């Protein structure tokens, strides 16, 4: 299907794909046959958040750029598709507009963002993210403010949405893993390891980071569009920084390197969270506790741990 991908890369990708992931993938693709209704709904949600988490994992684990503002991309994508549909544009166009808007935002903020480094980047992404949140929240005329934006009549069946979301996720993971093998991806990893050195080799690190950020933005924006179609509703709450923190939890829980971990983390988190929040309204306690435990005791995340325990893939990272 992707003729331009050299055979070697494809082989590499297959080799790196542990049985656990393959088994999981089959299950997820077959999910519409096995389960319906709410479970399928959650599975689709997990796939969409998986896409956003994978993008963050690419940015954080491989690009070394800590972002606590991913909710902005998600929200921009969601509003973009919602408003496009409201304006009567065809869905396909809306699905193009969403990542484009998120990428544009990434470009504009990135130009400011990468003037600083490290923890400052984290704080700035957070601040910019909250800025988008406050705009979405207050700009009633366009976003519907606190009342949100209802999407009507997208006519997408849950099965189609699920397969679409999952397909996107798989494409994103495959594409990003290939990208990480390419000179661009390796250079990005090199910048994370030693930016000064890479710059002294003649690489304009600023632009490499910027493009990684823009790419992440586009992917997350696409995920956001998916979430909007999936829920048929866009709420400014999704832009609040807790969503960014949640994505961070998903990534760290699964493991920030190798991208599989992030997808796994999103799946795990979505189901556990849905389950826990039926029992108690104190689920922040649960998310927070999980975050603390992960940081203290499972630095690599659960996916590498699982892989080692169960055998199979030889180091997917």
């Amino acid at each position, binding site marked *: 299907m992707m003729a331009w991908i050299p055979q070697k890369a494809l082989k590499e990708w297959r080799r790196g794909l542990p049985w656990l992931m393959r088994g999981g993938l089959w299950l997820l693709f077959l999910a519409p046959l096995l389960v319906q209704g709410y479970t399928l709904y959650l599975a689709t949600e997990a796939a969409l958040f998986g896409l956003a988490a994978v993008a963050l994992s690419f940015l954080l684990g491989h690009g070394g750029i800590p972002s606590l503002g991913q909710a902005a991309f998600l929200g921009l994508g969601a509003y973009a598709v919602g408003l496009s549909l409201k304006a009567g544009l065809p869905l396909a166009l809306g699905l193009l507009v969403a990542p484009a808007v998120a990428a544009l935002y990434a470009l504009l903020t990135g130009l400011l963002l990468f003037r*600083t480094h490290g923890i*400052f980047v984290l704080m700035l992404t957070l601040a910019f993210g909250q800025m988008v949140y406050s705009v979405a929240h207050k700009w009633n005329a366009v976003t519907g403010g606190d009342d949100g934006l209802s999407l009507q009549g997208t006519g997408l069946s849950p099965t189609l949405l699920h397969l679409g979301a999952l397909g996107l996720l798989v494409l994103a993971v495959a594409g990003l893993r290939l990208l990480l093998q390419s000179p661009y991806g390796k250079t990005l990893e090199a910048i994370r390891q030693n930016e000064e050195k890479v710059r002294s080799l003649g690489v304009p690190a600023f632009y490499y980071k910027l493009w990684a950020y823009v790419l992440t933005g586009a992917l997350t924006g696409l995920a956001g569009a998916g979430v909007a179609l999936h829920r048929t509703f866009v709420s400014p709450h999704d832009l609040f920084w807790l969503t960014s923190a949640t994505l961070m939890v998903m990534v760290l829980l699964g493991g920030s390197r190798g991208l599989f971990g992030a997808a796994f983390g999103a799946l795990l988190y979505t189901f556990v969270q849905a389950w826990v929040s039926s029992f108690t309204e*104190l689920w922040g306690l649960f998310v927070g506790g999980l975050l603390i435990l992960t*940081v203290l005791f499972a630095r690599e995340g659960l996916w590498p741990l699982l892989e080692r325990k169960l055998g199979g893939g030889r180091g997917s990272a």
Partner: protein
Amino acid sequence: MALLLLTQLLNSLAFAMLLFLLALGLSLIFGVARVVNLAHGAFYMLGAYLGLVLTNALGNFWLALLLVPLGVGLLGVAVERFLLRGLHGRELEQVLLTIGLGFVIADLLRGVFGAAIRSVPPPPELSGPLFLGAFLYPKYPLFVLGLGVALFLAVRLVLARTPFGIQVRAVTADPDMASALAVPPARVSLLTFGVGTALAGLGGVVGAPLIALAPGLDAQMTLFALIVVVIGGLGRIEGAFWGALLVGVVDGFGRLFLPQAAMFLIFALMALVLALKPEGLLGRRVA
């Protein structure tokens, strides 16, 4: 109109001083312990609820004002000692840990105190308005204003004159060299974390009567404090002070003239500062 502007200026300044209390703690902690404490707003909430409980139990706001920061500070010390120290030098992990901690504290508070809005009356002696001829203004914000300025001067004095203050500044500048001069950086860092969280707790006690106490305030306060230090410059108390004033005034007048866009104005201010001076208005360039 002039009266309106004056009233709003005082309002803004009072809120600015509350922000200063928070930003000061955040800034001190970052300077010495190198931790961006995103649980800061949660410590604020903790202080506010403890203040409420103590004020009711002891029947004395002033005693609560004294005891609560102590308690919150002790908790801060414990957090530094048992959770953060093991992650020394790993900024990202520390930040994530404080995020988690913030969620946990906020949710525990909700579990214990419920989600109802609590409003704490100011102490009787500061209740109600002050009449200045035709001009009428509540006493409590004036108290907050005075407290903030006094604290700013006091902290400056402490940092400038006392051995502990000089040690704090030395550790901020060069922890290794400080330790070669017999200053124990770990202990200074621990104490500073305690002082920083105590300031957040104090902010909670002081802030509760000024603005109400409701779930979700923790994230809001953390964010405000963060914006203030980003604008003012991280790790400098002057930065926290002037940054808080700037944010307070922009927020206050923004609310007055463009209520819907107030928060957006603050972020725009921040983006502007960053574009022109990434290290903050009074910040030093960070390598």
